């Protein structure tokens, strides 16, 4: 079943095409790596998926709901960290989540606090929930970012460069969390990153873009077969330079 459908999406800034006629689907249960060099249009596409910017052409559907026409239903199915995990620094981690959970109408008032405790437990921040966000490390902010993405029980979580600035321990924690949420809770992930090695460890599928256009999409096995090696980095560089 398709969780995310990208159909002929085009976004321009003046004459420059940021994303051009891009189409692909993400299926339920996938952990999909979204790969491309800097300026390829990854964040632009993620902003369009999350309704922050509007495409000039094309259609984005989440669980069959058009993000432009049926914004509330579509965004009700998705949680995201767009760019970096920024929070309201003057509030504690828990207060941030309590504030944001009010915006999910599918969670009744009486269940909001327990939902916040639940997601804090899932990401391993229950012990630090009462601390101000400004005291958190980047790794903790990433985990809190995933916690806020989990608030509305989403089918799809979008992470934009989640490993940015994390140390190896933080990256491992994040990886384990993604895999756990995918396996235990059946959440589909769409993860953009530069770290191919890292994506290889968690992703079953890949979408590769260059200069705003789709270059290739398929499973990790298909890519390895095409590359003739399990080291995808060389093949990726080849694709980007050809």
């Amino acid at each position, binding site marked *: 079943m398709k969780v995310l459908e990208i159909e002929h999406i085009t976004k321009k800034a003046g004459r420059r095409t940021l994303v051009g006629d891009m189409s692909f689907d993400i299926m339920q249960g996938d952990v999909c790596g979204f790969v491309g060099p800097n300026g390829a249009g990854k964040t632009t596409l993620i*902003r369009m998926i*999350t309704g922050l910017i509007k495409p000039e052409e094309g259609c984005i559907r989440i669980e069959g709901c058009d993000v432009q026409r049926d914004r509330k239903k579509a*965004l009700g199915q*998705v949680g995201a960290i767009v*760019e970096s995990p920024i929070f309201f620094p*003057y509030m504690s981690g828990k207060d941030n989540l309590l504030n*944001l959970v*009010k*915006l999910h109408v599918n969670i009744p008032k009486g269940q909001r606090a327990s939902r916040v405790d639940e997601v804090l437990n899932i990401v391993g921040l229950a012990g630090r929930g009462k601390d101000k966000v400004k005291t958190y490390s980047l790794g903790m902010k990433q985990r809190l970012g995933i916690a806020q993405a989990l608030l509305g029980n989403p089918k799809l979580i979008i992470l934009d460069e989640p490993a940015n600035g994390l140390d190896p321990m933080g990256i491992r924690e994040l990886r384990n969390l993604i895999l756990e949420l995918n396996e235990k809770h059946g959440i589909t992930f769409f993860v953009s990153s530069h770290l191919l090695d890292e994506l290889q460890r968690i992703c079953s599928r890949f979408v590769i873009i260059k200069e705003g256009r789709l270059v290739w999409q398929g499973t990790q096995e298909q890519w390895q077969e095409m590359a003739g090696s399990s080291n995808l980095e060389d093949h990726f560089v080849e694709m980007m330079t050809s």
Partner: protein
Amino acid sequence: MIQLMQSDWQRMWKRKKTMVSLLIFVGIVLLDCLFLMMQNLGAFDNVSTVPLTAQNFSLFLLKEVSFFLVLIIGPILMIDSFNGEYHGGQLRLVLIRPISVMRLFAAKWINLAIIMGMFVLVTFTVGEIFGHLFKPSVDSVVFLNPDRSYSSAGAFMYCLESYGLFMLIVLAQLSLTGLICTVLPSPIICYLGWVGVAVGSMYVSNTFSFLLFGMSTIFQWMAGSYSHAFIMPLFGCMILGLAVTMFWWNRRNWVK
């Protein structure tokens, strides 16, 4: 909508600036009360004065406080809510939720109107209390127009009406600041933009002097001596500011 308002309200009060603004505002109201208590006359302008009494004390208190409300507290709260959150990237956290962008705008605007209404109400209440505690109560009161005198109840209604007009000016100011905060990139530029609009509009026409000198306009309007259109430009600023900002919010790309 209520949940959006609750969420925005909570964020607003958790910001240090809101609490600091409130404390400074309370301090200024109290200092102005002390200042007025030491005066025997209330001045409408450089020429016209009347004896300060329990019945007109709250009006002159508003005159003292108004500049601070319109030029400092209102714009700061508006800029924090409409531009600061966006500029800091935090609004993105809210915008990616299953909410309507238009309702978010409405929630923010209504919350700011409520908080400014609270500031105005506090001024009125403190003015009435101080006036009745520390100034003599009289049977007949005259305001700017010496030909019209008012009973105690009439003076109360006169002050209430003046406060109502001031609240309308605040709402017009919120609408214009909302537009400025949506169009301009950073909080500091937004504040300069608002001051520029308030001062610059006077060069366009004296009709818009209420944006900067609200109380002077209200005094003259209530006395029946105001020579420009007031209500129409006031609602014009309010409605046009709201409409253009809503249009902009609906079309804009949220890239921060």
